[in-house]
């Protein structure tokens, strides 16, 4: 077990708290860099997809996990990014310019949806974002001359410095770079005053307001940053899938993104990454286990949603901090080895007063 004795304020906000962290994250990055050497092309595409979902999860975690705003329309931000990227790439814009444009446009859309969000909270906000997501989905399906409508849109591969970043290791490294950058942006944001204002809003809007946090500004900011993450991820997604159609960005997809964040662990950066791994890995695991199951069960189309829904319910019921919470408990068990007690992480029943009056 490690004790960190903090004597100065700077130690509290250091990016890296101790050398152990430096070692393990370094090892993680080395491992991620080494993956293309061993992985098959299919696995590499899945890994890229996982990194892309990690970026979205970072954004959604900022909004849902750290600012406490519910979004049931996040796939719409992803769609805005993906289609902007696709249209600009077809028009021949260089990648870094078009990906910036995708993020920016998604952020602007995020501000627009953030504005009604100032007037409504909680459940109503969820319904507003749900409505927004549905409208964007329909707009994409109808704006056929730009987006190709339901027939879909082919996305050309990335051209950078005369190199083709179509697929394989090059595209994977690009996604990895963006994911690491996104993680750094999120970590730095959260240890800045802005990040603390977000957390204050999540914990209590009234208290935050009385401490001088301007709710409207920070909520809109949170929405737009989160949307920008989703937009950039959407741009990468467009190049990874290379074919866009409106049915990739439905309300169901938005809900799955939210599920990813909740299962991973609400309110933790690690949780976002865990959630993305879960979302990509679960279908693979189910496919791998299928031969062991009775054929009637294995053939059923509803198997995956059932397991997904069950995992979500079990997470909320038994492990509200998600996979990251489970990991913390495991770590604590080994840290304290002979002294671990059963009731250490017992939840207090946190009865809150009426939600309607908030």
């Amino acid at each position, binding site marked *: 077990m490690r004790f960190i004795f903090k004597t100065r304020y700077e130690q509290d906000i250091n990016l890296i708290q101790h050398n152990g962290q430096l070692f393990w994250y370094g090892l993680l990055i080395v491992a991620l860099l080494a993956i293309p050497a061993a992985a098959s092309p299919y696995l590499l595409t899945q890994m890229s997809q996982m990194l892309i979902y990690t970026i979205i999860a970072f954004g959604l975690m900022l909004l*849902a996990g750290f600012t*406490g705003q*519910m979004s049931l329309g996040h796939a719409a931000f992803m769609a805005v990014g993906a289609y902007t990227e696709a249209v600009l790439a077809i028009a021949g814009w260089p990648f870094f310019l078009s990906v910036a444009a995708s993020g920016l446009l998604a952020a602007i859309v995020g501000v627009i949806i953030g504005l*009604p969000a100032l*007037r*409504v909270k*909680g*459940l*109503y906000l*969820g*319904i*507003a974002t*749900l*409505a*927004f997501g*549905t*409208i964007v989905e*329909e707009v994409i*399906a*109808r704006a056929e001359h730009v987006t190709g409508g339901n027939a879909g849109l082919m996305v050309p591969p990335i051209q950078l410095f005369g190199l083709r970043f179509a697929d394989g290791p090059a595209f994977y490294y690009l996604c990895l770079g963006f994911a690491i950058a996104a993680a750094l942006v999120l970590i730095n944001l959260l240890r800045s005053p802005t990040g603390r204002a977000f957390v204050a809003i999540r914990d209590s809007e009234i208290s935050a307001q009385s401490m001088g946090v301007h709710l409207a500004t920070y909520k809109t900011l949170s929405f737009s940053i989160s949307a920008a993450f989703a937009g950039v991820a959407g741009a990468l997604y467009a190049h990874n899938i290379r074919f866009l159609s409106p049915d990739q960005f439905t*309300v169901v997809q938005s*809900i799955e993104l*939210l*599920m990813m964040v*909740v299962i991973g662990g*609400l309110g933790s950066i690690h949780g976002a990454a865990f959630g993305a791994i879960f979302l990509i890995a679960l279908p693979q695991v189910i496919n791998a286990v299928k031969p062991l199951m009775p054929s*009637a*069960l294995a053939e*059923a*189309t*509803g*198997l*995956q*949603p*059932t*397991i*997904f*829904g*069950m*995992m*979500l*319910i079990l997470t*909320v*019921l038994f492990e*509200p901090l998600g996979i990251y919470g489970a990991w913390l408990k495991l770590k604590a068990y080994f840290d304290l080895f002979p002294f671990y007690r059963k009731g250490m992480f017992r939840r207090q*029943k*946190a*009865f*809150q007063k*009426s*939600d*309607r*009056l908030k």
Partner: protein
Amino acid sequence: MQIVQLVISGLAQGCIYGLIALGFVLIYKATETVNFAQGELMMIGAFAGLFAATTLGLPYWLVILAAMAATALIGLAIERVVLQPILGHPAFSIVMVTIGLSYMARGLVTMIPVVGTDTHALPVPFRGEIFRLGTLVISAEHIVIIAATIVLCGLLAAMFHYTKVGIAMQAMSQNQLAAYYMGIPVKRLSGLIWGISAAVAAIAGILLAPLTFVHANMGLIGIKAFPAAVIGGFTSLPGAIVGGLIIGVVESLAGFYLMEGFKDVAAFVVVLLMLVFKPTGLFGETARKKV
């Protein structure tokens, strides 16, 4: 005349939205939880009706009762097994749990061998009959939907005003803690509310079945019932029905007079406008809090 025709079919569709929204409101008013699986409860009700009608061969009125009973039991079970343990936790986790429930319901239904992802037709005694009123043509399905909604609303209103249980539920929806102190069995009542709202959903499912067939994804219509509930104000029972009717009529008119595609988003445009200009809805109560 065209417009009257459209309004009538819109009203019939709106009754379905209204009935689903009624389920949301019942549960939200009493227990302050939002049930995202309400549409799936409706789907389960429709399948229960289908089972009663085709496999058991019951007459139509018994089909309705059987579906209501079966779905109400499922609603009770959901409340007891899944929601009681997380009572009092933030709204976010409850929403996620009900979303998980809706996923599971959809998945489990498609896993039943004879059901699968196919669409099924529920046999009804009045299928295909139409009535002519001057130049108006009204199908029997629409009349049955509207009539059933009116009867059901009357029954619910009577229950809330004249029975002990109903009055206890009203007390509970005003202040759970105070109701508990006055000796009202809050836990048992919230289970009962879930049962009632599931039964209402089952009726909606059986009424909808002749219009759209019975299939595993019919519960997604529940997403359109959210606008209905918001427009009515999330805490008002008559509001839910009125909101449903408004959504139904707007959708029907938008589908005819506006461009293609507007029909599906009309409800959501209306709800966004409503949220921007009057977030409490048409009949919503404004709750004030003394600090």
